[in-house]
């Protein structure tokens, strides 16, 4: 009997589950545990990691400079997310409720730009927004301004770049949620005398809230780590948490401090996901 069970479930299930378990253990669990351990390690005079327990790295994080960058990074992420919602909601609504045959095309057009490497597209913005860039040339040629406007290299451009990079991640869940809306429900509401605004607040918004929530998570969290956007468009003037981590693993060469910064970032991420689930978000909506 036991042998039969072995043959019928244990062997096939371990063949199927085994690889993924090993993979996750080796490339997710062990590395993250190692980063956690490293965040309590010290460095020697040549910045080599020494396995000597210390709280120095976490104490170092309480430094006002790091706290400032954390706060700034959260603010940037918040503004980016809010901007994405405001821009993407009406847009997704319009393309998802289109009745024409072009609907698939309209949807695909959101994704197509993202088949080109994201760095080169951000660099495209830099060309466009530069002091002698396309936009300034256009504005001066049409005499809208006399001097070049300095668009580049500040927090505003960093946020702009983040919105650009992450916009589709807001559109896709919103699109899915809005598409699922039952048209007859909207009609019913307006038939019952609900005004447009009321229908929107009491019917549409609650039904599409899941899209807003999962879109927000998918925009907010990457924003904290996208160091290349603030490097290319922010000119190094508007660091996010990702920049701090990158610097410690590169020029700073203080891996334990970088590890501690990463652990804090992981904790922030987990808190956000918890908050998302509290709000009724389904974790399965993330990612796909």
């Amino acid at each position, binding site marked *: 009997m036991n042998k039969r069970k072995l043959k019928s479930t244990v062997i096939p299930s371990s063949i199927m589950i085994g690889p993924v378990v090993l993979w996750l253990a080796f490339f997710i669990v062990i590395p993250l545990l190692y980063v956690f351990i490293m965040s309590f390690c010290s460095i020697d*005079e040549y910045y080599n990691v020494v396995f000597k327990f210390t709280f120095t790295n976490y104490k170092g994080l309480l430094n006002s400079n790091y706290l400032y960058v954390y706060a700034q990074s959260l603010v940037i992420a918040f503004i980016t997310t809010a901007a994405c919602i405001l821009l993407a909601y009406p847009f997704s609504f319009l393309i998802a409720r289109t009745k024409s045959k072009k609907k698939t095309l309209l949807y695909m057009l959101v994704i197509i730009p993202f088949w080109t490497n994201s760095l080169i597209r951000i660099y495209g913005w830099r060309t466009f927004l530069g002091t002698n860039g396309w936009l300034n040339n256009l504005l001066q040629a049409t005499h809208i301004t006399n001097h070049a406007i300095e668009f580049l290299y500040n927090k505003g451009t960093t946020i702009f770049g983040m919105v650009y990079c992450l916009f589709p991640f807001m559109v896709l869940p919103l699109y899915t949620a809005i598409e699922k809306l039952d048209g007859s429900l909207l009609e019913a509401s307006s038939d019952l005398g609900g005004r447009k605004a009321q229908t929107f607040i009491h019917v549409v918004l609650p039904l599409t809230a899941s899209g807003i929530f999962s879109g927000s998570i998918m925009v907010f969290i990457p924003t904290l780590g996208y160091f290349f956007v603030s490097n290319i468009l922010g000119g190094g*003037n508007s660091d996010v948490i990702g920049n701090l981590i990158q610097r410690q693993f*590169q020029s700073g060469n203080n891996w334990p401090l970088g590890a501690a910064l990463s652990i804090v970032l992981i904790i922030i991420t987990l808190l956000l996901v918890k908050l998302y689930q509290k709000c009724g978000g389904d974790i399965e909506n993330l990612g796909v």
Partner: protein
Amino acid sequence: MKNIIIKTLLLISILAAGTMLTGCGTKAESASNGELNIYIWTEYVPDSVIEAFEEEYGITVNASTFSTNEDMLAKVKSESEGAFDIVQPSDYMVTQMYEQGMLEKLDKDALTNLGNIGSQYLDQAYDPGNVYSVPYQGGVAAIAVNTSKITSDITSYADLFNSDMANTMVVLDDYRAVIGMTARSLGYSMNETDAAKLTEIKDRLLTLKDNIKLFDSDSPKSALISGDCTAAFCWSAEIALAMEENPDIKIVFPTEGAYKFMDNWCIPKGAKNYDNAMKFINYMLTSEAAQLVMAEFPYLNPNTVAVAAMGSDYSDNEAKNPPQEVMNAGEYLVSLDNDTLAVYEEMWTELKQ
């Protein structure tokens, strides 16, 4: 149904096969005499010179680039030993690396072209007797001013802190360079360790924040040429190149004495292709190679034979070949202890937030 998977995979594999073919076609010719993995500064060693070396010696060169000495050090440490055959540290970094046992001694017998290097560039304090390093190029971190946009008279590092320079500058994305420059503007050493002076330097550094528009170590000339920035604190040769594109740009050597540097060829511990690395270094010491280098990246070149061959257009150009008195007034960086570097790192983070 199965054919969907097949179709997808087929398309992907056709695409992949196509690229591999184009790739193989171009790469197959050389590679008979082995490989060489070099790790060099961005915008510093021309592709043409590397290609000429590959052709002459039949050695395939794989080059990757770094932006600061500290980046390079971190990468070499994190890689397994033998990942790189050649690295290109600056003066103080040579010391730091050989003190940590990270460098191989150079085989002097293989350096038949060392005679091309002027004696004033050899046997320096950062590597007495050139046991581990041979100089490649150097210069100073000077000031560039676009005179059509900036009318005030800039003569010193201290002038860069003036409030009329607001939001104009591109500066090196390198904390030792920018903090060192700030120290010199106050009359201190670039290698200051005294706590009280460091506090003063920090306060001064933060006043620079409003003047900096962009941090860029790799190609600060780009922002000068494109007009995004109208002043710069950057490598002398970057300014020389920007001056060629825009005659309004002028180079200023600071009256305080500039941050000077000399970059070197070194072989990291455990290099897999030591002999090829020696061939490469010796090749770079030839007058021909040095001339090709100067034509593209006009730094102060210690290859005095090659500089003479470039003629007076080169040797009289202050930006390309900084005058001897500028070099004499300059200061090299030296490696500092962890605690001091932590203070530097902290003020840098505050500047960049």
